């Protein structure tokens, strides 16, 4: 009985190890790993873009969607082959430190400021993001921040810095740092009737708006540019440099750029291609 159970145990062990080795479909498929941000992913852009790329190139793109900080970290550690993020300062640092090569502009979208429809801080019509933020701080109106070192978060913090408001000191009870992705932050903002800054893409597909509406948009300061960076294969030999380059060129080339422009939600274009 002992021998039989040992054999059975061995068989089960081998089965369980062999099983989830690769996605069941076709283990020979070419694929690259793209580290991008949750906001980009949740906009639905990839669902539109990646099938087109796969048709053109035969390469599948596996998107790991995390905050910008984490995406850059994945690139540093060589766990992704290419990045698509929206934090120019972070991107430049990434390249300067030798983790990435050939940063290229890809597209931009914009951020919008949303808040409760009764607008307690009166930011509607304030004309600029800076003025809107100033009014929110003055009214000590509840503001939900992602607080997660993402591209969106970094952009938001730059706006506060530009108007000289120190929000991260803590004790400013109206400013709530959530440490969450864009969607979770909007969920929380909706739940606490707070203001928040979000990218238009996430907002367009966000379904739990409750009383939140767009109160400010269009300011140049809310401009949100995206960059594609190849992870430096010299740092990490395991990186799929050749296939990543194909994606990188496609994204910034005529077909990728046209696809980006063609992505619409409810008839509205979310991302504007600007590869040079």
């Amino acid at each position: 009985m002992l021998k039989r159970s040992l054999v059975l145990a061995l068989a089960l062990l081998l089965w369980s190890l062999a099983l989830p080795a690769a996605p069941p479909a076709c283990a020979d498929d070419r694929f690259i790993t793209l580290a991008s941000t949750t906001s980009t992913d949740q906009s639905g852009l990839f669902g539109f873009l990646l099938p087109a790329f796969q048709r053109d190139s035969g390469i599948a793109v596996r998107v790991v969607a995390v905050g910008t900080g984490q995406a850059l970290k994945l690139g540093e550690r060589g766990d992704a082959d290419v990045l698509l993020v929206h934090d120019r300062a972070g991107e430049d640092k990434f390249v300067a430190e030798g983790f990435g090569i050939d940063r290229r502009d890809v597209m931009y979208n914009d951020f919008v400021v949303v808040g409760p429809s009764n607008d307690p801080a009166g930011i509607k019509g304030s004309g600029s993001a800076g003025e809107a933020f100033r009014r929110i701080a003055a009214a000590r109106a509840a503001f939900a921040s992602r607080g997660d070192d993402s591209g969106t978060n970094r952009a938001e913090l730059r706006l506060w810095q530009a108007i000289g408001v120190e929000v991260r000191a803590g004790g400013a009870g109206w400013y709530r740092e959530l440490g969450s992705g864009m969607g979770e932050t909007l969920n929380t903002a909706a739940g606490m009737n707070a203001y928040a800054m979000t990218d238009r893409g996430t907002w367009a597909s966000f379904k739990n708006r409750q009383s939140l509406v767009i109160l400010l948009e269009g300011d140049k300061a809310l401009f949100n540019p995206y960059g594609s960076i190849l992870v430096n294969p010299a740092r990490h030999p395991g990186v799929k440099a050749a296939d990543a380059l194909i994606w990188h060129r496609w994204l910034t080339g005529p077909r990728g750029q046209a696809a980006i422009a063609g992505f619409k939600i409810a008839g509205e274009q979310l991302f504007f291609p600007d590869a040079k």
Partner: protein
Amino acid sequence: MLDLTAALSTAAALVIELDPQMLDIVRLSVLVSGSAVLLAALIGLPLGAVLALAVFPGRGLLVVMINACMGLPPVVVGLAIYLLLSRAGPLGQFGLLFTPSAMVVAQTVLVLPIVAALSRQVVADLWDEYGEQLRSLGAGKFSVVATLLWDGRFSLLTAVLAGFGRASAEVGAVMIVGGNISGVTRTMTTAIALETSKGDLPLALGLGIVLIGLVTAVNAVVFLVGQSARRRMG
């Protein structure tokens, strides 16, 4: 209230329509958690038995550590496994990160302490009862481990089910090591997290109901099998 009704009807729709994307997600969840539990049982059941029976210096400390690891935070385990499997990490060359295999590894680490700790307790209690007789019969060490594990199989099954519950419920570990990649490493829990963050609460709740239904079904099947076996074997 409205959300719950919406959630229930979403759950029903999901099950009835058998949406292929959802089926993929369900299949992956079952494969990953099932494999992790199987691996954890293969290692943990004998490990617990040995801990119950063997006497060696530091045993008490080891038992305390394993018991404590029952409460390992999934997200911490995920982070640790990520650092191990990352290309920049010691096991990077295997290319396991962001694959279901990495998820199995992480969940096995989570489930193993539960199975081992509970197995240890079951076997220790059985040894109190059987020890003298087994020694009188001259059973060797391996035989004792196998005999006690088999004789305690009903209690040990509960331990394994506890492990399965833990594995299928967690999201922190599989999110980090799997990356929640659509069509590749998206499980029920990571899908629920995603839909929640997109604000699609009825869908998230609906998926949650499907997940609970799945786990309940597994438990029901195991219970019935156990009952009939118990009736046959005392």
